[in-house]
């Protein structure tokens, strides 16, 4: 990785650090949500974009983190510790689940993850003593971090998630994960420890949503099972990654910016229309742009040997 390739990232991060000085509270909230979606999209990118194992239930970890964060805050932990523990609990939940579910290939894994998110939602709904069930948990304002604190935490998470992808992509782990995506049997035959690598990627991809879930609980100051174990959130992650280019470092960031802007322009007036448009977008990407927007960039064509003239 050269300085040239990370320069745009540094510029973007500096802009984001400086943003609160000039943004209104409303704009700051928009940026906060954008950063959250970047963090979530990158997490999905790590497991699904890199390995091709499609997780349709990544919000399970977001929900676990949100509930852990909210409950720990209520029990008197400081907010930043609650976020760390939320991430830790998501990791503790994800590691054994990864060992179990990643034995499943293709559609079986996708469906198992969909089921896991539903189980998470049901547990949060039915375990009333702990979670207050469907009524949800309102958080008392006195203990909550400020908008600015939430913003910088989310910025940290987005930068961490993007750096994680950049780091993984250019080291051995990333190479092996992409080998799994292309042909798992072949990868295994040339000595890639596929199970270990998949579980590592899965666990890493659960930590950030766990932390982001806790921050979400803090900035909305109220959570319930439907709002955090939300399939709609999972849809957004998938669209962002695909739109930008899955398995790439900057694709999900570009995707998140486009989708959140579209969201901002249409959501308030036409919620159903907005989601229908997202659906059209998914179908269009799958049919016409399977490698994402980044694949259109002219400078990428020259360096990709698989796109050289004469190759199939």
């Amino acid at each position, binding site marked *: 990785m050269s300085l040239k390739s990370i320069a745009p990232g540094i510029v973007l991060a500096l802009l984001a650090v400086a943003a609160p000085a000039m943004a209104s509270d409303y704009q700051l909230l928009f940026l906060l949500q954008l950063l959250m979606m970047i963090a979530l999209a990158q997490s999905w990118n790590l497991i699904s974009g890199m390995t091709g194992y499609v997780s349709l239930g990544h919000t399970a970890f977001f929900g676990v983190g949100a509930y852990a964060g909210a409950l720990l805050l209520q029990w008197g932990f400081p907010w930043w510790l609650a976020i760390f523990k939320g991430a830790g609990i998501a990791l503790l939940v994800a590691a054994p689940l990864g060992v179990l579910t990643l034995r499943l290939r293709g559609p079986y894994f996708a469906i198992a993850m969909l089921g896991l998110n539903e*189980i998470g939602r049901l547990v949060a709904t039915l375990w009333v003593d702990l979670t207050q069930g469907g009524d949800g948990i309102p958080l008392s304002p006195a203990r909550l971090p400020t908008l600015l604190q939430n913003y910088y935490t989310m910025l940290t998470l987005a930068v961490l998630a993007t750096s994680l992808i950049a780091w993984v992509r250019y080291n051995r782990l990333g190479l092996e994960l992409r080998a799994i995506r292309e042909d798992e049997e072949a990868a295994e035959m040339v000595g890639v420890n596929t199970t270990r690598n998949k579980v590592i990627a899965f666990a890493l991809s659960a930590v950030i949503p766990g932390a982001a879930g806790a921050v979400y609980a803090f900035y909305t100051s109220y959570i319930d099972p439907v709002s955090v174990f939300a399939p709609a959130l999972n849809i957004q992650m*998938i669209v962002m990654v695909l739109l930008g280019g899955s398995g790439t470092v900057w694709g999900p960031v570009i995707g998140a910016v486009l989708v959140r802007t579209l969201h901002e322009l249409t959501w308030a007036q036409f919620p159903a229309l907005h*989601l229908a448009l997202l*659906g059209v977008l998914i179908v269009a990407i799958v049919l016409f742009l399977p490698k994402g927007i980044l694949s259109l960039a002219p400078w990428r064509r020259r360096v990709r040997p698989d796109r050289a003239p004469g190759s199939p």
Partner: protein
Amino acid sequence: MHLLEPVLLLQFLVSGLLAGALYALLACGLNLVFGVMRVINLAHAELMLAGAFLTYVLYAWAGIHPLLAFFLVLPALFGAGFYLQRLVVERVVGKGELQSLLLTYGLSIILINTGLLIFASDFKAIPELQGALIVGDIAISKPRTAAALLAIALTLGVYHFLKHARLGKAIRAVAEHPDVAMLCGIDVVRMRMFTFGLAAAMAGAAGVMLTMIYSFSPETGADFILKCFAIIIIGGMGNFIGALYGGLLLGVAEIFVAGFVSSQWAEAVAYVLLILILLIRPTGLKGAADVT
């Protein structure tokens, strides 16, 4: 009344089978598409709701009874499925699971939200065919019985068709080995269009039945699709008749849990079964990928 009385157990069993028949019809269509073209149709439950809303519109605007609407909804959904396959889904056949999952995910979002734009999110119901038959000591709801009998008849009819009809055999040949089927002179693309049309018609039929027994909104599909996944995984992915058994099993299991524990926990049955089967025997109880 004590919970272990035989009459009550029988009542649960009958209610469970009646509820399960609808699941079975829906899941068989989903499984047929998967078996023939390895596409998991995440929009399958939305096709059912398309059938349900079509029935509702016919009832509300033209006063057509749901049982008659059946004969209009079935061909309509068949045609819709036929062309959906031709124009959209065919392009991702054989391209890997990610592509087809995402494509049908997109289709389902489009259908749900178009439904919301037209019908809003209120629940609709058709108050026809009510009441119950009393047989011995147990009560059997009339609409549920009608729906269940239709569902079972349709499912077995399609099964018979796949097993014995010339066209059905051609479809199975495509499922078994598309390239060889093509070499034998079978129009593979057309068979897939026909398969998707058939599955959509089965979903549409399930939609007609849905209007008779439940209230529904454009967002109702999510519960059903997850249950269908559980069912086809219980029965074996791609195994048509396995989905029939799986559907009936899930219906019965749900009613028993609702009766003995609580109706909220009944919702969890499908997911718990789903995860258990995936972990213990991912090919399903009847074995995977045998279209019949």
